């Protein structure tokens, strides 16, 4: 086991990791259970986090190699407008994919260019949802993008 120091949602913390511990497992062991694990193959995006500001699948990152990194999980994302839009559009059914979509949408909404449907769909293609059929999620994200740009 090694001790890995992280800036987790802005707070210094240390987690214990073996060489086979993923960042996903380390985050959940640290008590932050918003980040979900499902496929652990990079296919579903439910484990999405920001690692040094880049959106990644935390299941594909060895925790031991993250010493000194900044990690933002869904718990560290403050986006009441996105939460409200997702709820209003019926974009949350079972909710399992929602934390991943929230983190991925947060990264997407930070971009410079206004979004259209095709760009948003391409950018969110790494997140799977088995319930909603995606259109409510895309509609919510596009609405937030328009509103934030005024």
């Amino acid at each position: 086991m090694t001790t890995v120091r992280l800036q987790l949602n802005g707070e210094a913390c240390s987690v214990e990791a073996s060489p086979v511990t993923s960042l996903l497992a380390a985050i959940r062991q640290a008590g932050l259970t918003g980040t979900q694990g499902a496929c652990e193959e990079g296919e579903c995006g439910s484990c999405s986090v920001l690692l040094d500001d880049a959106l990644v699948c935390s299941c594909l990152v060895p925790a031991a190699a993250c010493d000194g990194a900044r990690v933002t999980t869904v718990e560290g994302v403050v986006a009441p407008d996105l939460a409200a839009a997702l709820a209003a559009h019926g974009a949350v059914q079972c909710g399992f994919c929602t934390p991943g979509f929230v983190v991925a949408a947060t990264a997407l909404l930070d971009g410079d260019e206004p979004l259209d449907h095709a760009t948003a769909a391409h950018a969110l293609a790494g997140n799977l949802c088995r319930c909603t059929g995606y259109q409510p999620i895309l509609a919510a994200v596009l609405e937030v993008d328009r509103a934030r740009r005024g």
Partner: protein
Amino acid sequence: MISTDGAVLPRTLAAALAVRADDPVRTVVAGGTDLMVGVNAGRLRPSSWLSLRRVPELQRIERHGSSLFVGACVTFARIERELVDTAPALAAAARTVGSVQIRNAATIGGNLSTASPAGDSLPVLACYHAEVEVASVRGTRIVPIGEFLVGPKRTDLGADELVVGVHLRRTTGEQAFAKVGPRAAMVIARCSLAARVDRTTGDAGVGIGAVAPCALAVPAAAEILASGGSVDDFVAAVVSAAAPIDDLRAPAAYRHHALAVLARRMHGWLQ
């Protein structure tokens, strides 16, 4: 030096090479997108990591005159963004890799070292006639891409070596990349094709992927492009270089057929 700590994160290439030489059992990790799939499935149990995340020399993109160097740890997200004008076919291939999450982590050095027959950067590197820079404490070697890739998931890399990056010539004229898969996103190529041609200089290149033990250049097809040969001759040259196999993802006959379709379309795009 046999270290037992979980990971070392050297801050210079020299330090990384020293660890590689002293402790070759450490698993080298860049983005982790290939390795961690195996780890999570219990197929791989690395005892310790040599992480290249913090080695600045491997993060470089350098342009000198007509040459371009792309460091091993440059991610596909950066290639997609930063090389649109300098290496359009490579940027196009990068855009098709996995998802945003995968492209933000996956590196070109990892793609080269994994040497999957379907690795998306590889037919493009073959079409550019790229050279791979590898290094160890013994020194640096420049290896043509066709010699670096020696078979499915097999490379010329020695046990104490690291990929430092790839050298490309900046080319002029038209170029393109295309791949075939079952959906629009998150696709492992069933076949892929990269081609470039500058008819004023007569310089051309063609590379194919996922239809042979490793990605490879097709010089006969490049000559046809350069000399303005017919589309049928081009398609025939591309297809005759392929040696696909049946596997879980697609039968050989399908790969052959799809490659011919891609070749025909690409010949049109490059006019």
